[in-house]
């Protein structure tokens, strides 16, 4: 009996520890400035104030430069993370198939390189990246940010998908090839359709990582042309006299896509996480 009570006490502690900080951010985003700065602190606002959300989504008269920045940043984030994920899925599924099914020289070196890239601090690639993009006029473009994201997620996608392809019996392909399919045909007609959950897992995982990427976007972007949400939120929070409610709103909106995707497609994310970090 005591054991059960302690168990539930521990569970409640974990739930509070995980949810409370984020809950406070959400509450702050629908509070009024007066409620947030009151002493003693008024934990729950007397009435919900969603005006910041409305100003960001609808625009209109009361929308400030902050709201416009969040809108522009959201669009840039969607484009950068979305295109980086799609490109990486396309290239990654091809190379993962090669690694999983075909024999070729330097395969071990290729795999080791893919794994090792995950461990590099971004600070080591960003200096030349900055110089190159600067010299060809690509600084402050979504294209540059997308390329930087691909460098981070493509090795990961290749690695995760290889695990999925390894799990598909090659007898299925052999059967297709007896029926006249080429190897490449078997890849597109048999292996890829059978790996849809692998594509979903690696795609969602990669999208969240690309969406959350800050350092490369921070260095490579300088205006609303390419600044992503993370960059805008970071900038915003370091301003003096920051509007706490608007800051919390921007924070919640930036978190929502990855958090909702992770909660709804949890099975896939966990597969991606375990395959990406702990293969074998």
């Amino acid at each position, binding site marked *: 009996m005591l054991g059960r009570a302690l168990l539930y006490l*521990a*569970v409640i502690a*974990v*739930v509070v*520890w*995980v949810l409370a*900080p*984020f809950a406070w*951010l959400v509450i702050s985003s629908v509070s009024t400035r007066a409620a947030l700065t009151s*002493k*003693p*602190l008024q*934990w729950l606002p007397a009435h919900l104030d969603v005006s910041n959300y409305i100003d960001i989504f609808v625009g209109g008269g009361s929308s400030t430069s902050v709201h416009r920045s969040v809108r522009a940043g959201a669009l840039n984030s969607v484009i950068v993370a979305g295109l980086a994920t799609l490109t990486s899925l396309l*290239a*990654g599924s*091809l*190379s993962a198939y*090669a690694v999983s099914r*075909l024999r070729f*020289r330097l395969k071990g070196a290729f795999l*080791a390189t893919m*794994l090792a890239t995950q*461990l*590099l*601090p*971004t*600070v*080591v*690639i*960003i200096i*030349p990246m900055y*110089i*190159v993009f600067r010299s060809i006029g690509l600084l402050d473009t979504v294209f540059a940010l997308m*390329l*930087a994201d*691909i*460098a981070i997620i*493509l090795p990961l996608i290749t690695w995760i998908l290889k695990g999925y392809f390894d799990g598909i019996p090659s007898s299925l392909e052999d059967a297709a090839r*007896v029926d*006249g399919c080429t*190897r490449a045909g078997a890849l597109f007609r048999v292996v890829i359709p059978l790996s849809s959950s692998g594509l979903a897992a690696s795609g969602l995982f990669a999208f969240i990582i690309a*969406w*959350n990427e*800050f350092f490369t976007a921070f260095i490579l972007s300088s205006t609303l042309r390419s600044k992503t949400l*993370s960059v805008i*939120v*970071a900038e915003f*929070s370091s301003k003096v006299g920051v509007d706490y409610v608007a800051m919390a709103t921007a924070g919640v909106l930036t*978190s929502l896509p*990855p958090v909702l*995707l*992770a*909660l709804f497609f949890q099975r896939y*994310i966990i597969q991606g*996480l*375990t395959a990406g*970090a*702990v*293969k*074998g």
Partner: protein
Amino acid sequence: MRTTGGPRTPRLSIPGWSTWLDRPGFLATLLLVPTVVLVFGVLLYPILDTLRLSLTDRVLSIPASGAFVGLANYLRALQDPEFRAALGRTFYFALVTVPVETTLGLLIALLLDQRFVGRGFVRGIIILPWAMPYIVNGVMWKWILNANYGALNALLQQVGLIDHYRIWLGYPSTAFNFVILANIWKETPVAVILLLAALQTIPRELYEAARVDGANAWRRFRAVTFPNLRPVIAVTMVVKTVWALKEFDLIYVMTGGGPANATNVATFYTYLTTFKFLKFGYGAAMAFIIVLLSLVIAFFYVRLIAPREVAE
């Protein structure tokens, strides 16, 4: 026309392109081209170029700079008291976060492996901190720790633990530990998820057998659970160590390296040297020192995770 029986092999009748496509070596090359171009172009080329830059005295604001200086930047960095202090902070960060997150992750994973009402819900929400963007995590904790209106101050005062609001991020002694706390909140779930997944692969019969032998809970953990989790724990710790060496976002948002350099870790100092003071050559050498440290850890990482794959 063939006169002997047996299945027709249509592949033989279509010479040219598709035959080429069926040669594993050629097909492999073709399939690898996009990935190799992208990864090598956007990742490996910059790494090599960083290496080259680190051997020069390039300063972005001085067009004539860029002369070869050999290992001078490396020697200078290793003697630079600021950089050495920054490396020391990075090690402190890793030495606290890695054991704490792994231990906490193991305890929570063991808890979530028990049967209780609402287990699915708790397992579900545990992923939330992992999914949060690093920057929002930093902003959120900075707001919670705010000296004037922060929730932590309000909470501690209302329960009577402090009598006046504290500037948590304003003092060197507390600032770094609160940055570490924010990191622990965000990164512990990864350990929980990895360890919980590993726990579920341990055959239940092993526990039954141990129970029949009269082993109590602690002995079952020592004899069955821990040995089975050991490889995953090792990998988790190595991955987390590498991540700790990379930490930048939280520092940037929560403290900007301050107060009085208390949170100025190696990556942040490298960033300041490079992009604030535009010493690209010197910064590149620092970046490479961090990479060399990561590679030492990466070596163990690759050996731990993929001894079979890479041996191929």
